[in-house]
């Protein structure tokens, strides 16, 4: 029996120099993620890949045990997509901040949910840019004053939940790092969901966002009840537009829709990941010789 406790922890093996501010919501997310993975028997650090981009949230793969691809700003999803598509045996989580996923990577955000590739997309949503010191993010609320938006944010905030539901995402959830148990369960369900799963994960930025604090999130969120039916798309859309009190939980889930990789001909007969395959030279020779 493999000891699963602390299976994903790195701090016992090396000294970690963590770049987050004391009290940052990222610490909570890191702990919840490790705990969620520990409890999932099917996952080990070896068959798990965390893909991230750039930003404070995107540093998360460096602080625990996993296969990690810390790529470019905004380009988390194309990398995560291709890793899963070329090796469907891997559990792939694409994790980064709201600036990375919704701003720089907006085009990939829109199109990978259309693919319904079986990956989990966790977005640390603190409604501000942390690493570049406090500018507005796509989810910053209107009127928020920043070093760049000196008269307050003019742009309408991006609504990832509504976009995802409207755009064919098959699992759309919202969580808050302050609610550890609920968030852990949502992450586990998202990973086990067959298809693209989005979790917009609220976290306070204690340094640069003085509006959306722990207290603010506590006050402005509530947990969806047991009787909420996430398969009702229109109801889910209504939930996506609740702004005074924001619902937490699985807002929308569509089960049974085929994933991207399930529909690929490369996996119809042969389930092996691509790295295990080689070209059949004799077959290629016959094929080339047909071009006469």
């Amino acid at each position, binding site marked *: 029996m493999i000891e699963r406790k602390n299976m994903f922890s790195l701090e016992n093996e090396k000294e970690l120099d963590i770049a987050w501010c004391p009290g940052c919501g990222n610490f909570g997310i890191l702990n919840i993620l490790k705990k969620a993975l520990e409890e999932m028997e099917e996952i080990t*650090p*070896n*068959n798990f*890949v965390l*893909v991230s981009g*750039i930003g404070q949230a995107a*540093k998360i*793969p*460096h602080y625990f*045990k*996993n*296969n*990690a*691809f*810390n*790529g*470019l700003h905004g*380009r988390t*999803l*194309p*990398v*995560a*997509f*291709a*890793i899963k*598509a*070329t*090796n469907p*045996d*891997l559990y792939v989580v694409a994790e980064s901040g709201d600036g990375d996923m919704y701003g720089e990577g907006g*085009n*990939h955000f*829109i*199109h990978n949910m259309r693919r319904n590739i079986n990956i989990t997309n966790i977005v640390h949503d603190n409604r501000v840019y942390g690493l570049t010191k406090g500018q507005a993010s796509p989810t910053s609320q209107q009127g928020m004053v920043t070093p760049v938006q000196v008269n307050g944010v003019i742009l309408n905030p991006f609504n990832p939940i509504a976009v995802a539901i409207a755009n064919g995402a098959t699992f759309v959830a919202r969580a808050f790092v302050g609610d550890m148990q609920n968030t852990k369960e949502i992450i586990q369900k998202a990973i086990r969901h067959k298809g693209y799963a989005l979790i917009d994960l609220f976290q306070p930025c204690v340094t640069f966002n003085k509006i959306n604090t722990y207290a603010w999130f506590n006050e402005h969120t509530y947990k969806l009840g047991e009787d909420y039916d996430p398969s009702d798309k229109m109801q889910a859309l209504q939930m996506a537009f609740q702004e005074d009190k924001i619902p937490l939980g699985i807002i929308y889930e569509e089960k049974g829709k085929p994933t991207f990789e399930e529909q*690929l*001909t*490369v996996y119809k007969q*042969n389930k092996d*990941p*691509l*790295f295990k*395959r*080689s*070209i*059949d*030279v004799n*077959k*290629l*020779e016959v*094929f*080339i*010789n047909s*071009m*006469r």
Partner: protein
Amino acid sequence: MNKTIKEDVSIVLSGEAGQGIQTIEGLLTFILKREGYYVFATKEYMSRIRGGSNSTEIRVSSKPVKSYVDKIDILIPLTKSSVEHLGNRVTEDTLIIADNDSLKLENKNLFNVPILSIAKEIGNEIYANIVAVGVILGLFKTNLKTIEEYLQERFGDKGEKIVSDNIKAASEGYKLGKDFSESGEIKIEISANESLKDDLLISGTDAVSLGALAGNCDSIFAYPMTPGSGVLVDLANFSKNFDILVEQAEDEIAAINMAIGGWYAGARSMVTTSDGGFALMEEGLSLAGMIESPLVIHLAQRPAPATGLPTRTAQEGLNLVINAGHGEFPRLVFAPGSLEQAFYLTQKAFNIADKYQIPVFILTDQFFVDSYYNVKKLDLSNIENKKYFVETAEDYKRYDLSKAKNGVSPRGIPNYGNGLVVVDSDEHDEEGHITEDLDIRIKMVEKRLKKFETLKEDFISPEFYGNDNYKYLVICWGSNYNVVKEALENIDNKDLAMLHFSQVYPIPENAVEFLEKAEKIIDVENNATGQFAKLIRAETGIKIDSKILKFNGMPFSVEELTAKIREELQ
């Protein structure tokens, strides 16, 4: 009027987009090749789906033909504006075969053939193209059976009626063509050689795509862009028979990041694009450099800046690919000159990329990808594919300096072995984790650049053609291989030789010897600034003063280049 064309005939078809010139080109080239001729075909076209003026040139010969010529022996215009479109390429020697009942052209070399009314009689105007094909084949007095067999192959899945109508249309045209030939009005005297029947007939696009397949490419990620999209379409077709994952990305930035993700997971991925699309990929190239990912990029060049001339040809992308991506990291650039080179170098690209963990470019252009000719054989017996990734142990470190050989550390992939594979676009330590340790920074920079040195030893030598005791050396790269060669054959001067580079970066070290021996070096390129000559100067210190540059979007013609090289010899 009687005219005899010997040995090498150039047939040009011209019309609007949407008139089916490509269909005629496909039928004529394949049927004539099967009859035992050497054929070459290339097209020039406008960036539109309907209308405009496009043309296709088909050369047919008893000797290998592989380059574009200005001369037009036989012109088949499908629109009134075609003759004007071709300008001074239409000369007194050009015979025009046209349906003049509808086109109403005025030319003394005109042969009126009622193509349209024959087609209508058979039942549909759309058979006009097939009638035209028949006329040409009649001039060659090809075997009717070859025509019938090919039409059966080509249209068989559309039903018997379509096949028989096509055969009827071709036969009617054939009779007219044969009549011209037997009356002596148009006589084509080119001997056929039955052994050519088994030659392959492939395009530059096909050569790259087949090379990728032979290199064990198992995934392609691309955003469509002319003229690079052909490879995407080819591999999509091949995926019906071979294990290839084909995904049309949402943009070029996604495409290159996907390809890098594929390699990370152990796949052999490529992207295909043109200059503008690659410009968007630049940050991704830099990522490949930083995380030491293998990567194969096919870039089919076209005139720029910006969107330039979308369907024309150029060699303007050299500076771009050599300097692309911020920071300092190694890369390799192949620029095949022949279809065979395109096949073998693309195959090799996947292995070189894997071996050295670097990006490798296949730099082609519109003229190259859209041209095709006879290829004897693509020999697979010496093809070697090696996957260089390793099974990892528990203590695996992606950038292990103690295990780095000439800068290359063993590359692990996730879930193959007990180790973990960590890569980071930031500067990283041996494990792949982010670091700001400035001593490690120095070691990692040196590790990455060391690969450049090793790479220099594993180069593809430039190809020399001519007499060893040359005074004049024409240097060229990429698609100018065949046209320079044919120009040199025409000039036939023992003081003149050619050096063609199919590896343009890094410049192969043995090139210097060839260059230093020449009294005069003549640079031939399809750009306005002599990018390759400048690269030679930067890398070797050798200054090249004579440049023959063309940058109007068309390839060099044999006649034009022959004349220009002759001028340089004065």
